[in-house]
Structure formats: C-alpha cells, structure tokens
C-alpha cells in the first residue's frame, strides 16, 4: 500500500476512484443492460462526489450569507469563510440532468425489451444477427 502514502491528504479521492471502478466494471463486464445502466449511475455519482469534494475548505461554512438580507450589502466577504460555490452549482445541474438521462435510458430499455423480449447483450446480438441474416 505504498501507493496510498502519497494520497494521505486526500484519501476520499481513492474512495471515489474505487466507486468509479465498480461502475466501470458493471458497465463493461456485465451483459445485462439494466446492470450496465446501474453501473453508469454509480460511475456518474463517483464523479459528482469527487467534484463536490473539491469545494471543501477547512474552517469554512456553507456558501450562504447568514445576515445578508437587509444588512450591509456592500461589505466585502472573506473568501476563506465560505466553501467554493462553483462545484455545487455544476453538480446540482448534473444530478438533475443525470435523472433525465436515466429516464431516457429506461425508456430505450423498455422499447428494446418489447422488440426483442430480452435485455441480455449476447442474446440481443444473436437475435440481431439472425434477423439481418434471414
């Protein structure tokens, strides 16, 4: 585990990479299309968690000004007191778009199942080959 010594300051990144490996293996190694979709979601969440973890800052609070409204709006805030809001914004939209992607993928899987009666990749290839050959 000598390789982990260099990663001592950001061990959470190693966790996200392990999560990504699980998703990657499910996407490539499994032959069921639903399992591939689940793998894609795990992969996506590992990336979302990684980008959100980039926004962390020691000793900082959530990026919301507590007494902002009605207070002295013109004051300059100290950047060290609030975590980075930018990754939150990007991942907020990525999560919702991910749900839309999952919906489209499930719709495609339903149509595939209606057309071919199976979601196993090798059976699908078999059926495609026989239908184009005849």
């Amino acid at each position, binding site marked *: 585990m000598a*390789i982990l010594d*260099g*990663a001592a*300051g*950001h061990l*959470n*990144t*190693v966790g996200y*990479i*392990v999560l*990504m*490996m699980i998703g*990657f*293996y499910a996407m*490539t*190694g499994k032959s069921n299309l639903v399992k591939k979709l689940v793998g894609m979601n795990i992969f996506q969440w590992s990336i979302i968690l990684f980008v959100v*973890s*980039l*926004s*962390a*800052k*020691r*000793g*900082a609070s959530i*990026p*919301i*000004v*507590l007494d*902002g*409204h009605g207070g002295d*709006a*013109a*004051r*300059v*805030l*100290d*950047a*060290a007191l*609030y975590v*980075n*809001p*930018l*990754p*939150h*914004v990007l991942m*907020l*939209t990525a999560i*919702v*778009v991910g749900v*839309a*992607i999952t*919906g*489209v993928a499930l*719709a*495609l899987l*339903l*149509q595939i199942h209606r057309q071919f009666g199976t979601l196993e990749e090798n059976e699908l290839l078999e059926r495609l080959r026989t239908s184009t050959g005849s």
Partner: protein
Amino acid sequence: MKLLHLVATTVTGLLLIMGSLDLAETGDPAAPAATHVSPRYIESSLEETGVENMVTAVLADYRGFDTLGEVTVIFTGAIAVLLILRTGLKEDEE
C-alpha cells in the same frame, strides 16, 4: 472474458489513483480550485446581486445561460421519453 474486464478496470483505477497523487489536500484553503474563480463569486456576489445564497446567485445570474441550457436538456429528455414510448396524449386525442 470476465478476467479481461477485471484487469481493465483495475489498471484504469490504478492509473487514476496514480494521477490523483498530485492533487491538493482535501480542504486545503490554498488549493487551486479554491483560489482561481470562486473568491470573486464569494466576495462580490452579495454586493452585485443582493442574494444571500451564493449557489443560487451563480446558478441563476452569473451562469444563467448555462442553467437555461440545463433546463432545455431536461425538457428534451422528457420529450424524448414521450416520443420513444408514445403514451402522453393517447386518451386525449380520441
């Protein structure tokens, strides 16, 4: 075949871990991600937009065009599911 996928996954993971060794420490206030764009948002978003929640300020004001694109993506997703499955207006059209 399974072994090949397992080897590919492990090699990818190890390469990614090796590549991540140079990343800044988690929570480091001097990390590049915390020093380039975000101080500008944190310091002046309240003054410029009058909104306390910086995430909302960046989402809807500074990057409003980006959010418009995201909403269009969700809209397109709903339309795509409707077109793939064709159930939406079945009863109404009759």
